[in-house]
């Protein structure tokens, strides 16, 4: 007998029949009827009309029937809240049932019914169940608290459930402890206030670690994750926690293993890296990481994503485990790509031969993405391990011989990088490369080939012919190819002036006259002018020696790396992004976690194991794309601020006096053979900009004190006639990191007013008053009072339109008065909104160009420095400043209280009162408000 037969009734009057059956006297018939009802429900039929009849069945001692009814209730309570109240009595009664299963069931079901009226009734039974004698009931109740908090946090705090939860941490049953920990973790994540009530101290941690040994595997995950958030007092405590967690590394459940690894990785920061204990931990971490790879592909993948940065943080752990990362042919493609990445990270001169043999094998596989990445990997090996470069090059040549289109193209792109790393070493292979010119159809490969031709023009006899052939289709090429072609022809001309004169004229006129792209046009103009005024200088500039490219290009930035270590096994670790980058705004912002500094003597800190980090200028943000690895060439790179030269700027204003500027601009351009190199020098330039903004560091100190943030003038919010005699004017301000609502209350009535209270509606930024209105009572007629009401940002959130709209209710003895006002955005900018330059660069790049918005700020009478200062008082921070051709570019960042980051670029031309403002953010809704904040800050 199967349940599927319940799906088959489709007769008319079905509801009617069911009704009759539900009211039948026989238990079995009743049960069958409820099953039928639920069957209809699961296939989407509306059986809500049967609500009262089903609820009637609830009063039974048959557990199975009861469960069925509860299942039905959970589904329909929301659409029938009034009916659901009927069931409340039974719920409350069931919470006292002698059978613990029924008690737990009742509490759980009540928690699931999201009807406000029910939650009120829930409090008493829940309190009892939290102290129930049966652990099964207690653990169900603990989880229920977290759920209730999600629905109504105020209620939970008022009822003191948080304290009860904390008591459960000391429960005798480990299962209860684990669930209490889970519930507490969830609550702390959403609300910062709760963390004050529940403070994880060393005693509690001790209890948790004791429970760890006895509870179920999932409980262990909950506990380990909670322990990972705890900061031990000293090295000794860290060590003892490590000792107690290490046995978990051998657990069969991969989630437990990874959580244990997380705890240990975090605590290792506090342990002396020279101690024996440290090296023992390092040794113990390898086997569990390897075991994680002997599982289902989905688990493998998540593990690999974690290993990817664990290896960057502590390369020692897996240095001898290269073999496990070798790709199996039946791995899913996402696992293969990830393994490849880790292989390259572990490559060194000892294992290179082995790795290279593998990679060569992969390069002949079927999957195109994988093959491409393998070819790139060979190039990365060459750049990373110098001894192997020659072997890598010959492998690449073999691959080119296969004439497989995409393999050839990838190989050429990486060979170009090898040339940049080892100049004048492998040029003998150029002839082979040239044979494959006509097969190249991808812009990146074409651009790379053109760069090679230009760079080694003196050795390629027919370089002019080759370049000329590219020139024929100049207009159809992508921007990066065009730029390369321009530069390559100029190089050719400088190296072999005789033959290439015609060619260079042709390309310059193509670039300057027939082209809409400002980058290309400006570069063309620069070359033109250079060549016509001072060819020697041109030679010096264009053929200057280029800096070598760095070994590893896609390492994770150290601060992000540390943060990821704190988030091992979570989603952050899979995305390689901090959690606030992808979690929906849930109330408060989880504090950014950072690794704890080791608390040993300070002289040891400098001897921490050196991280494999390349000079910062070369750090290119990790791009998650398949091919954007060694070189990130995408069209948007051209739109980077660094190369955003105002169009026509050169044509109109460049005179001899500005030659320095031109050189500067070239500095950007000439090394910029390809997208990456466009980026890297500009990254360096960004840092250079940082130097000039170093002065702001001083401003930080003085600026904040000398001028205060902008406070908009008082605005009439509630006129007398609407306020029944009460008049309210107000504005908002931000002082010492706290938002205030400045209120002026005037009693225009003839009677005194008393018992004031204020409340906000849910709003976009979760603003709530943190204290009550402190109005002298009574407020006598014609008396006026000024108040500053501090506001918090942890209140309930609801998107308002406009975004900054705030609805306020003020109550007094006369009536409840409603008004709404607009919150100026700048009071929501946080003091810690200043981004790292590199983070800024990465974030700017990550946000698609489409979401950029431009505004014009008119009539601003500040220069760049004054504007910087002015904006800084309103927590709009300047990350870097650059000057391009007489324009001052300010790159600024700000952070809203809910964690939204806004990036801005402010273009200022000295003497011109109009500023150009470009905004970028993941949340486009805030643009209008941010623009207004700029307007306000710069006009007052």
């Amino acid at each position: 007998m199967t349940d599927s037969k319940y799906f088959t009734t489709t007769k008319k009057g079905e509801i009617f029949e069911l009704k009759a059956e539900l009211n039948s006297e026989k238990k079995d018939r009743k049960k069958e009827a409820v099953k039928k009802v639920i069957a209809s429900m699961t296939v989407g039929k509306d059986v809500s009309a049967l609500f009262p009849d089903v609820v009637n069945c609830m009063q039974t001692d048959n557990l199975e029937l009861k469960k069925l009814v509860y299942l039905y209730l959970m589904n329909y309570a929301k659409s029938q809240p009034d009916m659901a109240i009927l069931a409340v009595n039974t719920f409350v009664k069931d919470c006292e049932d002698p059978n613990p299963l029924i008690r737990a069931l009742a509490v759980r079901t009540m928690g699931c019914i999201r009807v406000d009226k029910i939650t009120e009734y829930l409090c008493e039974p829940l309190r009892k169940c939290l102290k129930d004698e049966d652990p099964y009931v207690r653990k169900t109740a603990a989880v229920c608290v977290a759920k209730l908090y999600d629905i109504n946090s105020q209620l939970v705090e008022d009822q003191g459930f948080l304290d009860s939860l904390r008591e459960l941490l000391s429960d005798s049953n480990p299962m209860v402890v684990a669930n209490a920990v889970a519930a507490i973790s969830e609550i702390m994540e959403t609300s910062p206030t709760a963390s004050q009530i529940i403070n994880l101290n060393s005693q509690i941690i001790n209890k948790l670690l004791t429970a760890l040994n006895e509870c179920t595997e999932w409980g262990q995950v909950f506990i380990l994750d909670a322990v990972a958030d705890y900061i031990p007092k000293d090295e000794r405590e860290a060590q003892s926690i490590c000792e107690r967690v290490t046995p978990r590394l051998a657990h069969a459940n991969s989630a437990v293993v990874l959580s244990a690894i997380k705890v240990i990785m975090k605590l290792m920061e506090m342990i002396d890296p020279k101690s024996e204990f440290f090296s023992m931990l390092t040794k113990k971490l390898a086997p569990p990481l390897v075991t994680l790879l002997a599982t289902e592909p989905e688990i493998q993948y998540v593990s690999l994503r974690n290993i990817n940065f664990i290896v960057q943080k502590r390369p020692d752990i897996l240095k001898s485990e290269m073999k496990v990362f070798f790709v199996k042919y039946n791995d899913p493609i996402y696992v293969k790509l990830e393994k490849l990445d880790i292989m390259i990270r572990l490559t060194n001169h000892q294992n290179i031969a082995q790795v290279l043999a593998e990679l060569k094998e992969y390069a002949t596989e079927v999957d195109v993405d994988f093959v491409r990445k393998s070819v790139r990997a060979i190039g990365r090996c060459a750049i990373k391990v110098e001894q192997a470069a020659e072997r890598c090059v010959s492998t690449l040549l073999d691959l080119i011989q296969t004439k497989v289109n995409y393999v050839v193209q990838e190989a050429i792109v990486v060979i170009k990088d090898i040339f940049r790393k080892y100049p004048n070493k492998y040029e003998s292979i150029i002839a082979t490369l040239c044979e494959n010119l006509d097969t190249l159809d991808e812009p990146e490969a074409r651009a790379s080939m053109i760069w090679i031709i230009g760079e080694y023009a003196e050795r390629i006899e027919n370089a002019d012919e080759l370049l000329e052939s590219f020139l024929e289709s100049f207009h159809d090429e992508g921007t990066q190819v065009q730029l390369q072609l321009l530069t390559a022809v100029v190089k050719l001309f400088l190296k072999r002036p005789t033959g290439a004169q015609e060619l260079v004229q042709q390309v310059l006129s193509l670039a300057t006259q027939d082209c809409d792209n400002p980058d290309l046009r400006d570069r063309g103009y620069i070359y033109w002018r250079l060549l016509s005024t001072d060819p020697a200088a041109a030679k010096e500039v264009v053929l200057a020696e280029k800096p070598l490219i760095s070994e590893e290009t896609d390492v994770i930035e150290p601060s992000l790396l540390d943060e990821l270590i704190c988030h091992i096994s979570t989603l952050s670790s899979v995305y390689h992004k901090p959690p606030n980058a992808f979690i929906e705004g849930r109330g408060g912002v989880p504090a950014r976690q950072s690794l704890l500094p080791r608390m040993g003597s300070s002289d040891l800190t400098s001897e921490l194991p050196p991280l494999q980090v390349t000079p910062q200028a070369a750090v290119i943000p990790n791009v998650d794309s398949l091919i954007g690895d060694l070189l990130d060439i995408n069209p948007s790179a051209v739109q980077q601020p660094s190369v955003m030269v105002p169009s026509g700027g050169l044509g109109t204003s460049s005179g001899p006096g500005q030659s320095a500027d031109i050189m500067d601009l070239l500095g950007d351009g000439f090394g910029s053979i390809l997208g990456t190199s466009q980026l890297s020098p500009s990254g360096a330039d960004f840092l250079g900009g940082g130097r000039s903004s170093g002065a702001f560091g001083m401003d930080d100190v003085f600026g904040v004190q000398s001028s205060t943030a902008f406070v908009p003038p008082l605005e009439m919010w509630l006129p007398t006639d609407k306020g029944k005699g009460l008049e309210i004017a107000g504005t908002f301000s931000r002082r010492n990191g706290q938002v205030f609502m400045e209120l002026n209350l005037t009693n225009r009535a003839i009677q005194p007013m008393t018992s004031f209270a204020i409340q906000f509606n849910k709003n976009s930024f979760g603003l709530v008053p943190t204290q009550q209105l402190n109005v002298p009572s009574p407020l006598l007629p014609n008396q006026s009072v000024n108040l500053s009401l501090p506001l918090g940002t942890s209140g309930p959130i609801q998107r308002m339109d406009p975004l900054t709209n705030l609805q306020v209710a003020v109550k007094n003895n006369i009536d409840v008065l409603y008004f709404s006002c607009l919150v100026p955005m700048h009071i929501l900018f946080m003091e810690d909104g200043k981004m790292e330059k590199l983070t800024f660069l990465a974030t700017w790049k990550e946000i698609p160009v489409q979401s950029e918005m431009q505004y014009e700020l008119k009539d601003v009478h500040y220069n760049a420095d004054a504007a910087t200062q002015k904006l800084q008082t309103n927590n709009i921070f300047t990350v870097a400043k650059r000057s391009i051709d007489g324009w001052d570019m300010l790159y600024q960042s700000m952070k809203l209280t809910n964690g939204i980051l806004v990036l801005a670029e402010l273009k200022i031309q000295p003497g011109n009162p109009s500023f150009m403002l470009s905004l970028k953010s993941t949340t486009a809704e805030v643009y209008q408000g941010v623009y207004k904040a700029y307007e306000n800050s710069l006009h007052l």
Partner: protein
Amino acid sequence: MFLSEVLILSPDGTCLLSKNFRRGSSVNSHDAFVARMQEQRLTDSSPYFSVNGLNCFFICRKSLYFCATSTASVPALMVIESLTRFYQILKDCCGTVNEESIRANFILIHELLDEYLNCGYVQLSTTEKLKSYVQSEPAVLRSSENQAAGLFGLEFRVAPSNAADRPVIRPRVDQEQRKNEIFLDIIERLTVVIAANGTMSRGELQGQVNLKCFLDGCPQLKIGLNKDLVIGSKDKSLKSYGNVVYLDKCTFHNSVNLDEFTDKKIISVQPPEGEFSVMTYALEGDFPHGLPFRIYSYIKDDASSRDVELNLKLRCELPGNCQAIDVVAHIPVPSKTTGICQQLSSLNQSAQLMAAEKKIEWRLKKVSNKAEHSASFKLVGAKENKSCLIEIGPIILDFEISGFVCSNLQIQFLRVFDRELSYAPMKWVRYITTSDSYIVKLK
């Protein structure tokens, strides 16, 4: 840490079952998965994605999708592991897991989910413990072959192939006629790379000893392994002494008692209900019996012709009288190949050119011990230039061998300690070796 919703989707995206634990997000979970499915084949994409702050995870088992979503920053590994476990529980409770059995057992699954994921938090995860909280009975779908009554006595000799595909929780009516059976499987997966000169350049095996128990009253079991088992010893020279069975790594299930292990190599276990791995182990390096298969190749490259001739010889080197079934060799060929002419040595083979994947599939239904099979292929139009030849190979081999494991691990005995001696259990022990990644290089 909590999950917001759990769904089971059919291959075409129909929602077979969904259970919501938390306040919904702005994105409908089901829509999110369906949209993703339309974008790309889910099996090719990584097991998670995010849509507007809703984090979605899924695993694919038996072409059904088991999905979970959450609005919180959940430990990704935990979600995936718990979905995997959820599938395991369904298998234990419903026997086989397919669209039909999920529909038939929807109330049971709802109940299970309620206990397994209380308010979205993972709770109990062993079938045995969950069982005590569940009221519904599983609906067993009977396949026709299952109903065929055994001939007198004969059913004792052979268990039907799907004998183990039964729910562990039994419908009450069944309880009377319940057979006391126990299945013990030793499964090894091989990862091997054989270099062109015939030496093994990489050899690993991953093994599991799985137990599925249908016994009354969960009695204690004792499993005897090879007496001369050595685990993780650094001293590999031991291998040369006779019949020593050597394993590199070995982990045991939590419920295993290892008191007698060091001396007598006996593990005792109080088996929880449902299927579980008593132990997992790994071995790297040479296998005691050598490699099960070798392939010898010869490429005849006639300079005057555009065709290439490829001769292959597959030799099975299993000990004893076991045989391999469903052996498939995947032979990559140059992309220019337009067709093949084939000559196969025996009848139970077939070969086919898969042009899209630029490979030949050479299938052998059965390969018995010490047998040799050969095939010669003429790759028409393969050679455009000399370099095309490097596109041939390496050969990938898929196979399944029953009755043999490469590590030589053996179950010496399996004793059931039933205090009341109320029944004589049926014991089934199976040895299976499968290929995980078995690669033979040609040059």
